[in-house]
């Protein structure tokens, strides 16, 4: 059952990602991206990372996508972007490079499918002891408190930068 669901979500995520690239208009691409991010949230649920799934939906599929939509609306929607995108040799070359990298990675992973187990085990133990939210909360505010506070500074810098550049009357 879990396996089937995983393949459903993975297919939806990949299909959504392809839709983003192939979409006709920026808004269509954006909606495909929502599909992709929502499916990733589904995969998080299957991994029993419930809090992460909720964050994924609230922040990415919700807030960030709203921002994307506004940015697209700010741009010139009537303009046809397709001639601007370099086609032909360049796209063939990029597909070749990306395909070669993907093939190499796939081949290497296929040959060596064992992952380092330690990280996964410790997360499972944390979840068993403190629950899905506690497993995030405990390390975040104790062991990882320095990155946490830097995140606060980062958000402050983002506010200042956005206001400086986008506030209409200065």
């Amino acid at each position, binding site marked *: 059952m879990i396996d089937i669901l995983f393949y459903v979500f993975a297919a939806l995520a990949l299909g959504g990602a392809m839709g983003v690239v192939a979409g006709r208009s920026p808004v269509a691409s954006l909606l495909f991206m929502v599909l992709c991010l929502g499916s990733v949230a589904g995969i998080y649920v299957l991994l029993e990372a419930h809090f992460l799934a909720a964050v994924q939906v609230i922040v990415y599929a919700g807030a960030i996508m709203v921002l994307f939509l506004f940015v697209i609306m700010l741009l010139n929607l009537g303009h046809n972007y397709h001639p601007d995108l370099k086609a032909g040799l360049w796209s063939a070359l990029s597909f070749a490079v990306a395909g070669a990298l993907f093939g190499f990675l796939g081949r290497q992973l296929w040959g060596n499918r064992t992952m380092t187990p330690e990280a996964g085990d410790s997360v499972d133990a944390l979840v068993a002891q403190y629950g899905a939210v506690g497993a995030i909360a405990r390390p975040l505010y104790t062991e990882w408190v320095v990155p946490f506070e*830097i995140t606060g500074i980062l958000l402050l810098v983002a506010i200042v930068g956005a206001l400086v550049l986008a506030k209409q009357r200065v």
Partner: protein
Amino acid sequence: MVIDFSSNLDYVRALLPEIILCVWGMVVLMAGVWRGESSEEGPRAEGLGWLALVGVAFAAVANGWLHGVREVGTDGMIAVDGFRLFSNWIFLTAALLGMLVSFAYVYRQRLQAGEYYALMLFSVAGMMFMAGARNLIVVFLGLEVMSIAVYALSAFNRRDRRSAEAGLKYFILGAFSTGFFLYGIALTYGATGSTHLPTIALAVSNGTAHGALLLFGVALMGVGFAFKVSAVPFHMWAPDVYEGAPSPVTAFMSAGVKAAAFAAFFRVFLVSFQGAYESWYGVMWWLSATTMVGANLIALVQTNVKRMLAYSSIAHGGYLLVAITAANQASAGAALFYLLVYTVMNISAFAVVIAVSNHGEERLEFEDYAGLGRNQPGLALLLTLFLLSLAGFPGTGGFMAKFQLLLGAMDAQLWVLSVILVLSTVVSYAYYLRLAWYTWMRDPADGGSPLPVYLPIGMRLALVVGAAVVIWLGLFPGSVLDLARASAAGLGVAGPMVEILH
């Protein structure tokens, strides 16, 4: 005093310079909008600039105090070692000079002073986080704090379309490269089960890391760093951004951002990926060779001074990549010394450019420098000094720094790369000296109207400090060089690993 990170309160002491800069950034930010007054008026804008400099001074005191602190173990998120402290001195120098050259520009262009200096302080804090981080998450967050502040600074002049274009280009390409970097961190974590640099180093060197994932992690992080240091296949953004951004911001970021990216580059690649040296050595070799050759050749045909200095900055990144390719003790020390000298001479050269461009974006072509030697001999002399130092002329700090890099490269037996370094330096003389030639030998096209040049106190201070440091480090580099070498020893770089190659 001893710090062992047994309690989280230890971080308050270990991160004192960063904390001071962040708090001071907030103070300057709030002072800028206090009582709803506009911070664009002249005296107020300059007052905010001096206020920000006070913060830099406090951070410098804290950084000096940290020299007396001893760190036990390598468990912390933040290293308290010589490498970090020396890097911090470089960033503080960049902040000091960058702010001094901004004063007149900020109020002449009616920029929002509170935000301008606050963002500068935040970006310096971000640089420090990058250089001191012992965890990839902290490297990433530092990179982001620094980058977002600098994106905003590049687009800061809202009355100038080119500034907006520069900001947008930098933002989009920078975000793209950050994606690479983050993906690299994720794959490295997948390969080694940790984001802590010493733990990664252990997993890489004893072979428990997952080979393919690690290789991709290293490659993607290398791409991310190469974008930030604008190494040649990834340099496309740099000339446009450096040309379009306000000149003091260009001065600040061409030195500070590059120094921070290199500091993190060194720590991540030389500490954690040391055991995978043979897999990234070849890539770094080519990256540095193409950067040195490409940037110097393109710089030859530039007619805009800011663009020429942008390509010069890319070329200097190429010289520093030689040190990463060499990956030995001597090179790491030389690179720290080089970054300090480069920061001083590059910002000082930009200081002259800002003065000549009338604290705006005028008079930026080579032709506009014709007659400067006759009208402003003092300024022309300083410009010549900084250009010679950038070129690496004997007797200047630039020469000493490049000489040390060369020694490090020879120590690692990188003969071909050393030859490329020397030859590309010779090529670089052409475009640096061409600007000096315009300054002294060319008469202005319109028959010699005098160039009005306004040199306020901040600018004079920056020029004097810059010239003094460049000459002092050129003639008596001993003590600073020793400090740089000792600082790099704290990095824990293993000796030259040439035996792997031959």
